[in-house]
């Protein structure tokens, strides 16, 4: 346990010692800020219209602002996650510091989990920015916080899965740009698989649809935890971590 945290701390320090963490935070603040004010503006517009037309049913903030925002956040995550995971192992290989990690009295699994955890914590910091925005909704309205909590849980699970896959991809090269690009491709595929299932009903299309990250995130955004979605994300996490440990093992043999 101590060893995992030792690795995580070092990883987080490296993120915040280089521009990458601040760049991500700034990019995220701008993008999410844009989505947020867009959604709020739209909501206000619709509310005004309905008031003017004499219909004054209460507008649902959860349904009209929070849910679309969570869906957007899920998609934005697909683009930012490769930037977080790409350096994890590729940079250690390039610098030769992998030799320090692999000859120190720590298990490979502790190194992997430490790095993965650090990446997840950085992603959680990004989500923190979106939470700041969401805070305004609570200041001016009365949204239900429970579905939102489930939505954020889903975002963390989604990031956990994709970061685990990204960590694995990062062990396969010493060039972090390549690792980032391949991870980006993988994230993109896991997103667009959903589109196929929209018009095709054959088995292969169903399977592709099942592999789609967005499809499994959608229920979370409504505040619904379905076991099959949770299982999907947890399997993605286990698969990524497992592949990473196998990859490190084979790295030792070939070195």
């Amino acid at each position, binding site marked *: 346990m101590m060893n995992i945290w030792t690795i995580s701390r070092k990883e987080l320090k490296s993120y915040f010692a280089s521009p990458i963490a601040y760049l991500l935070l700034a990019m995220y603040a701008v993008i999410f800020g844009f989505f947020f004010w867009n959604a709020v503006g739209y909501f206000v517009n619709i509310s005004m219209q309905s008031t003017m037309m004499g219909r004054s049913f209460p507008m649902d903030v959860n349904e009209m602002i929070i849910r679309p925002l969570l869906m957007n956040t899920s998609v934005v995550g697909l683009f930012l996650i490769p930037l977080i995971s790409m350096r994890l192992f590729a940079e250690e290989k390039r610098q030769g510091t992998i030799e*320090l990690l692999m*000859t120190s*009295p720590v298990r490979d699994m502790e190194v992997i989990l430490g790095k993965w955890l650090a990446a997840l914590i950085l992603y959680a910091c990004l989500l923190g920015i979106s939470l700041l925005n969401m805070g305004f909704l609570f200041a001016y309205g009365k949204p239900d916080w429970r579905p939102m909590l489930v939505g954020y849980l889903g975002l963390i699970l989604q990031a956990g899965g994709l970061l685990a896959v990204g960590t694995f991809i990062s062990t396969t090269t010493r060039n972090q740009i390549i690792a980032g690009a391949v991870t980006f491709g993988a994230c993109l595929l896991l997103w667009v698989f959903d589109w196929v299932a929209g018009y095709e009903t054959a088995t292969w299309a169903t399977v592709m649809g099942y592999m789609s990250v967005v499809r499994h995130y959608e229920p979370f955004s409504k505040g619904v935890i379905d076991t099959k979605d949770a299982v999907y994300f947890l399997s993605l996490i286990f698969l990524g971590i497992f592949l990473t440990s196998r990859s490190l093992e084979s790295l030792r043999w070939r070195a």
Partner: protein
Amino acid sequence: MISVQNLTKRYDRNVAVNEISFEVAKGQIVGFLGPNGAGKTTTMRILTCFMPPTSGRASVAGFDVLDQPLEVKRRIGYLPETPPLYPEMEVHEYLAFVARLKGIPHADVSRRVAEVSERCAVTDVSRKLISKLSKGYRQRVGLAQAILHNPDVLILDEPTAGLDPKQIHETRQLIRSLAGEHTIILSTHILPEVEQTCDHVIIISKGKIVAQDTVENLTSRLRGQEAVLVEVTGAGADDIRGALSGVPGVARVVHRDSRNGLHSFEVESAPGQNVRALLARRVVESGWSLHELRPVAMSLEEVFLELTASEKAAEADGKGGRQ
């Protein structure tokens, strides 16, 4: 302290280390001497549990590298060929990270970091970013990293490669000063480095060990400039051997074999002596027949020549770099 038996490492078809065996006793400083591509780094990577051997066994302090890697790693400090440094960290941060990684208790980390910084003379840069350090300082931070957890065994891969003469001198002194507390294996392709730093030497070439001895024995053998093969008939092997040993300038006579009364010997001469004429006269004067008298290349000498050739190349590189 270190025991290696029939160790082999193959990369695909290429055999990097071929059935090598050696032992290192506690407290020794052993020089692992060999030209580039000899298999030094590979052997060290196996000893440090970075990679498993293809076959054979290696153990450190009684723990097998395959069966108990964590125990082995706790007892080894390793400085790879390029020091494993994180450029974005400050020196003290880096050393504290490695200290925790090596399992030093929380309460002792900063004391231990201060101690090794002092020891390796990096205290004055401890608040500097590693990316801003000179090569000499990087090497010393690498050494500090290796001795942090006070390991029984230190494994140093070419610790002076790429340094300037002053830095080389300082690094060698530092390594010598570590000798009392640790068993040390250091690799190098420079013969004088072994002479100045080590007590024992293992010469490795093309994945095979070609010699292992104390530094004194080996250097005196290397300095014996010439070896001559002498084949004689007419007397018993011992008599001939006694007579040849008595020739002035002869350092050593080794009986190779005897077939049908033909005895062959390898005669090594002392430095700067040409003993061939004297040997011939002694054989003829004793009334025996001389069948063959020719210089032989000592296998050690061959290796030595190869080593000195690469050393000269390295020196030329160094000079080019400093201009």
